[in-house]
């Protein structure tokens, strides 16, 4: 089974992180962009590289820095002396997977250059709109905003990421194996693609075929409603958030080799999907999404 092969291949690179790997895969199978947030040195970049490789996608890495400009990402027009005309030189954005490393170190101006690309899969430069390749994923990594030299991502951009996951410290066994084993970069080099473009498209199509029953839609609506009415939430989940939740749950069901979604799927993906979309009412600018997601899960009855 393809999905099992994908998971085990990634497990061989990033040790002891199967839940996060599954979430990341679910995100990409649901055609969503992924944001990985954690402290430096936790394997964020490694996971994103590995994802791109096993999915057999052409990827570009952009290292975001505070002096990166939109043109550096999108590309720019260059004067060609031979033809005597301007020629558009495509930037690193024109790839199937973008590894936006340390995305929150770039200025809001540059981050905003990503907005159109992420939602509409197209970029506009010099008044010309150009389609991006299909599929198109952004896997971004970022350090927590409390770290020095970071800009918080605007809500509009955060909302465009289907999921935000955290990796966390490995458990002692996995860490021991990590310490014992060889270079992880070398392991990455040896990683072979598990699916090709057609295989990935088939998997994505299969996600869309996963069925959702009415009682489950009721559950999602209760979750969304709770986030909108509950006093501890600064604002509720948007319809896009609800759609994202359902999409991710479908992909999770597919990873669990099921053709229909059960509430467990929703609960599994819910923290990843909603944490970055929620703010605590008491701490509007803060980052308390994690606790809120748990409240949401605990506060809503699964069965009407």
């Amino acid at each position, binding site marked *: 089974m393809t999905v099992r092969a994908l998971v085990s291949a990634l497990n061989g690179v990033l040790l002891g992180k199967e839940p996060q790997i599954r979430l990341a895969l679910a995100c990409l199978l649901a055609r969503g962009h992924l944001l990985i947030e954690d402290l430096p040195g936790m394997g964020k970049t490694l996971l994103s590289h590995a994802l791109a490789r096993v999915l057999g996608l052409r990827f570009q890495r952009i290292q975001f820095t505070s002096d990166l400009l939109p043109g550096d990402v999108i590309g720019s027009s260059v004067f060609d002396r031979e033809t005597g005309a301007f020629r558009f030189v495509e930037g690193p954005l024109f790839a199937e997977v973008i590894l936006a490393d340390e995305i929150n170190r770039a200025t809001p101006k540059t981050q905003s250059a990503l907005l159109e690309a992420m939602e509409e899969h197209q970029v506009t430069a010099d008044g010309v709109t150009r389609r991006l390749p299909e599929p198109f994923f952004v896997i971004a990594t970022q350090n927590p905003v409390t770290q020095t030299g970071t800009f918080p991502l605007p809500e509009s951009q955060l909302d465009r990421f289907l999921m935000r996951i955290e990796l966390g410290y490995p458990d002692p066994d996995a860490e021991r194996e990590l310490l014992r084993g060889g270079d992880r970069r070398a392991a990455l080099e040896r990683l072979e693609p598990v699916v090709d473009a057609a295989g990935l498209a088939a998997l994505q199509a299969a996600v869309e075929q996963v*069925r*959702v*029953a*009415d*009682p*489950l839609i009721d559950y999602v609506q209760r979750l969304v409603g709770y986030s909108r009415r509950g006093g501890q939430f600064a604002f509720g989940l948007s319809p896009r958030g609800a759609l994202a939740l359902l999409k991710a749950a479908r992909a999770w069901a597919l990873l669990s080799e099921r*053709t*229909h*979604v*059960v*509430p*467990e799927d929703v*609960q599994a993906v819910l923290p990843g999907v909603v944490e970055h979309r929620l703010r605590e009412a008491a701490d509007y600018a803060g980052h308390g999404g994690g606790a809120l997601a748990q409240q949401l*899960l*605990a*506060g*809503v*009855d*699964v*069965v*009407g």
Partner: protein
Amino acid sequence: MGAEGIAAVAPHAPARDGARRGRGIAYQIPRNSLALLMVAQVAVVLPFLLHLAPWLIAVCLFCCCWRYGVYQGRWDYPSRLLKALVVVAAVAGVALSNVPGFSLEAAASLLNLAFALKLIEMKNRRDAYVVIFLGYFLIATLFLFDQSMLQAGYQLFAIVVVTAAMVGMNQLATRVRPFSNLRLAGALILQALPLTVVVFLFFPRLAPLWSVPLPNASVTGLREEMTPGDVAELGRSDALAFRAVFTGAPPAPRELYWRALVYSRFDSGTWSVGPDPGAAAGPDFDRDETTARSYEVLLEPTFARWLVALETPLPESPGIVLTRDWRLQAPDPVLAVYRYRARAYSGAVPEPDLVRPMRARETALPAEDNPRIRAFAVALREATPDTRAFVDALLTHIRSEPYFYTLNPPVLPREHSIDRFWFETRRGFCTHYAGAVVFMLRAVGVPARLVGGYQGGEVNPITGHVVVRQYDAHAWVEYWQPGAGWIRVDPTGAVAPARIEQGLRAALSAEDRASLPVLGGVRLRESGMVRGLLDWVDSLDHRWNLWVVGYDGQLQADVLKRLLGEVTPLRIGIAVATGGALSGAVVALILFWRRRPPSRHPVERMFAGFCARMARLGWARRPDEPPGSYLDRVAAAAGQSADARARTIARLNGLLYNPAAPGGRAELRQLRGELRRLQFRLAFGPSSGVPG
């Protein structure tokens, strides 16, 4: 808000006014409500059009237009001087218009004017509330003029509009949704209806503390004076006169002679009632109960005291007077639908001996009027000395000579009018013939009188009551014979028998028919869909009169006695409280029903039942626990194998969450069995030997 803002900076607005308006937005009238207020005003004033002078309505509409201009921001409020002028002019207008000074019309006119003028000086919320409450008051006032069902329905609509304006007053200025306001107001009024019914049933009917001045009595109906031709006017009106409900089947229309007024005096071509004969000494006629008919009449307002009754009447409702000329009389003028019961003894001889003053009254004639007919009568009397034969001879004369029955008779002079009719024009209506016969009877010394009232009526096939309209108005003759009392003679039967047998229409010529109003024409037709519809409307209206308008103190006492057994303040209090609680409960039930949870899937219901039973065993599901995980937990606790658990979970999840699963009853039954076994194991322990 635009309008208020512009008004505030208008150069000629008084400074104090501006300062007052400057108190802030909180005192302004929301625009939404302002629009509704204007609609409400039109809705409230419109029905008064039927009862008040047209120029008042014009003033109201003018104010409305002015206010609309202000609303649009094009005009300013009128200046103080102009307002004062308008008020003076309006009051003067009411004083100069031909309504009596202290009448209901005058009061209602002033109220309407105040209501309209308030509109053009309405600036802040307080003013708007004044207009709203004045609106409610005006709606109540209109019932003094008209209490019909149509009117009540319309007023209900007006109440909804006024209430919607009040709802708008309490909304944010940014919410401009007049239709949702109307809906909310409608819902509020609907919720109030059950309570209205309770209060209607139980609220004591107080005797009026003061008398309401009479509305102008310019209504069609019988009058105490009658010049031949008057009844012809009535004949063109299809307005309702009264309805009668008989105990048992109603008699045939030709037997129904509803006596209302007795005209005993004749002077210069006009018959009049003459001085009041006073009340009868008592019902001293011999009453034969086997032929007596009991009936109830709902008389439309007549603004007079006379009531209609079949001969010979005996009143059953309290307060009604039996007069010496055997009519019924109400204690007060009939201003609203008046309801009374009476009995009719058709075979009775109430007055076998005529006392001298009555004889003088019923034989008096002016000395010199109509000499030719006098001579004619005396000559005929000499040929036929017997009074009955004399009357028959008169009727035969009418039948055999070329006399015609018509609604459009030639105009007669005041002097010698009967001579002129009898010998020259020979065209007339019931009054002409009856008047001539009475005159001739008196001329030969027989006591006789002209009786005015209604003859016939239609039976409504739906409720079985008799409807009598103004075109059924009629006049006939009564003459007195010693021992036989008063004998009724209807000369119209001689000239137009169809009028008595089949009603007015049969007796009319094509020319007469053309002069009738449209609906009247339709009513006189025998059948057809429109006729059926009119019958239906009439039956509705009748029930309305019977149960709503006619619900007076008497009827209330009856109803309360039937409801409560014994009428004590405590019982009434309990009944009102119960009714109030019940009507509140109706509203609560509706709210509860609208908030009910959506209907559930059978699998969900089954699982919910399972969860409830398990909770009683101490294995409650946490709310956030998905069904599959929960089942796994309890099944593991019951000691089921992982495989069995997985199968059950897959079945449950499939039924609950997989719309494409084969499912069906068999699967559901299977799952139910598995859950039962699981429950059993948890209740009695895995060692109880139940397979699972």
